[in-house]
C-alpha cells in the first residue's frame, strides 16, 4: 500500500495510512483529507496505522497539521492500530499528549 485510503463512516474520516509515512508520501495526505473536510460533516479524523511500518517526523508534521485543522472545525483526531515502532515515534514526539489512541 503506497497511498492512503480514505473511508467515511458517519461523521468520521478514517485515514488508512500507507506502509511508509515520510515526506514523500505524506504531502498528499494533507491535500486529500482537506478535500473530505471541504465537503463538511466530518467531526473526527482517525489515523489508522495498521499497515504502517515506518514513519518519521514528516508524518508527525502531517498529524499536527490535521490536529490543528480539526480543532479549528470543533472536531477531534485519534490514532489507531499503531505497532510498537510507531508507538515509540508517537511517544517521543508528544503526539499521545494531544491525541487519544483507540488501540487497546
Amino acid at each position, binding site marked *: 500500500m503506497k497511498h492512503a485510503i480514505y473511508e467515511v463512516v458517519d461523521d468520521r474520516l478514517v485515514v488508512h495510512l500507507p506502509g*511508509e509515512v*515520510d*515526506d*514523500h508520501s505524506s*504531502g498528499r495526505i*494533507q491535500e486529500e483529507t482537506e478535500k473530505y473536510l471541504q465537503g463538511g460533516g466530518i467531526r473526527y479524523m482517525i489515523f489508522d496505522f495498521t499497515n504502517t511500518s*515506518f514513519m*518519521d*517526523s*514528516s508524518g*508527525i*508534521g*502531517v498529524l*499536527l*497539521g490535521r490536529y490543528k485543522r480539526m480543532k479549528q472545525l470543533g472536531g477531534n483526531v485519534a490514532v489507531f492500530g499503531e505497532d510498537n*515502532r510507531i508507538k515509540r*515515534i508517537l511517544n*517521543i*514526539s508528544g503526539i499521545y499528549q494531544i491525541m487519544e489512541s483507540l488501540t487497546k
Partner: protein
Amino acid sequence: MEETRGKKETMRLEIESLSCNEAFARVAVAAFMARMDPTVEEVDDVKTAVSEAVTNCVIHAYGGGEGKIWIQAEVEGSLLTVQVRDSGVGISDVKKAMEPLYTGKPEAGRSGMGFSFMEAFMDEVQVDSVPGEGTVVTMKKKLGQ
C-alpha cells in the same frame, strides 16, 4: 575475501535531491549495516535518522529544487557512522536549527522535530554548516548496547 571483523568498512552513495530518494537512502544504509548483525530496533532507529537527514537536504538545503546528496556510512567494530552531506543553502544558526520544534518552514507543515529525532535515535549527532555552501550531518551509533 575474508572480512576481518573490527576493520573499517565504508560505502559512499551519491543521490539526487528527490523525495523518492528518502526511502532509497534509508533502505541502502539499513542494507549496509546488515553486516553488523543489528537488532530490528537498531535498524529502525538508523532508518529514521537517515530519513530525517536526507529529507532536510531535499526540503531545506535545496528547497525542492535540484541538487546532489552524499551519504557515507562506515562500520568499525560495533560503531556505525553515517554522514549526510549537501551543497545547499546551509544553516546560519545551527544551534537554533537544532532546538526542538524549531522549523524554518512552519507553513510547509514541518514539525521541527527532525534533529530531535536524529538525536533520539542515534548516540551522537554533529552538524557542520556553511551558509551558501552546504551542510554535513554526522551521526554515530554504537550497536549492541
